[in-house]
């Protein structure tokens, strides 16, 4: 595997800044859902690190479930927008407060689709918390309730986000210089 230092462009968000912001979001969400119960839905796989760290700051009762989705079509960028559910929720969300936790929202297609799908199950409320928002790439309007950071339209990795399944463990979020990546994702 290529050493990330060979293709890193810059650190966009450092470890300390992420930790502070995640703590703030945890407190804000705990405040907003005070006296209520919450089901946290982690979207695999990118959302994992963020979900684990975010929920550590929750002071409200909550349960956790996971979903795994992929897009139909060739490659992430040539997607029809239709989403395939690889792993569905174990929980019946009817009448529950649901918070979807995602690492990054980009075109918004996947998120819009999953929101639409979950709404048919009639949750009491359905909100979205993303760590990174790549607003410039948006193709479908999607309402995001909690945002960690706005990021520019660059290829990002680290803190749960992979390049070809690697580098998820890095504690910061960095942008990649695609020209230096040996195997383009």
């Amino acid at each position, binding site marked *: 595997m290529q050493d990330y230092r060979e293709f890193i462009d810059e650190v966009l968000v450092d470890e300390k800044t992420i930790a502070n912001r995640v703590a703030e979001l945890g407190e804000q969400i705990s405040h907003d859902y005070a006296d209520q119960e919450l089901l946290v839905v982690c979207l695999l796989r990118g959302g994992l*690190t963020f979900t684990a760290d975010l929920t550590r700051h929750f002071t409200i009762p909550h349960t956790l479930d996971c979903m795994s989705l992929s897009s139909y079509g060739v490659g992430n960028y040539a997607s029809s927008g239709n989403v395939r559910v690889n792993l569905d929720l174990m929980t019946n969300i009817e009448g529950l407060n649901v918070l979807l936790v995602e690492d990054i929202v980009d075109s918004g297609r996947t998120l819009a689709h999953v929101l639409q799908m979950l709404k048919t199950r009639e949750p009491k409320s359905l909100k979205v918390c993303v760590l990174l928002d790549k607003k410039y790439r948006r193709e479908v309007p999607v309402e995001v309730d909690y945002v960690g950071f706005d990021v520019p339209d660059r290829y990002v990795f680290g803190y749960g986000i992979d390049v070809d399944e690697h580098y998820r463990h890095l504690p910061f979020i960095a942008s990649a210089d695609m020209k230096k990546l040996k195997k383009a994702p």
Partner: protein
Amino acid sequence: MQDYHNFIAEILIDEQSIQTRIKELGEEISRDYKTKNLLLICILRGGIVFLVDLMRHITVPTQLDFMAVSSYGAGARQSGGSVRLSLDLKTDIRNKDVLLVEDIVDSGNTIAYVLEFLQTRQPRSLKVCTLLDKEERRETPVPIHYRGFSIPNKFVFGYGLDLDEYYRNLPFIAVVDLKKYQPPA
């Protein structure tokens, strides 16, 4: 939801001890897999918190994948034998050095089944890392290569382990006083 202070019998492992031990495990794994091609497999959902923290201390190139399993028959805790795979791996593990990351090994029935099943795909190596080992409860032998803590046969929760789906976000591992615990309605 009941406040955990009302039914906690004792804190078995505090936050600091967990984090120190995980750092040690991460360093040990990094040494052992220095020249290898490590694939971490997380079994949902209990293993998530442990995995996220462990991953931060692994310095060798690492890939990550997930599995979700459930048991056929009544009650997840009374698992008789057969395991249903609700989410299979995305990665082909042939010739990979696979490390299965678990929150707890109890009867060992589920994990023994998963190991047997993964072995048929011919990984180069297949090992197990568990945060907690409740050896007294073992019904099926399981080789454990990395062990966070051996614990007595008590009902534990916190740090990824749930009590009726709650309390996963607590930073410590505690014992439940079952006489005082009231399951959610």
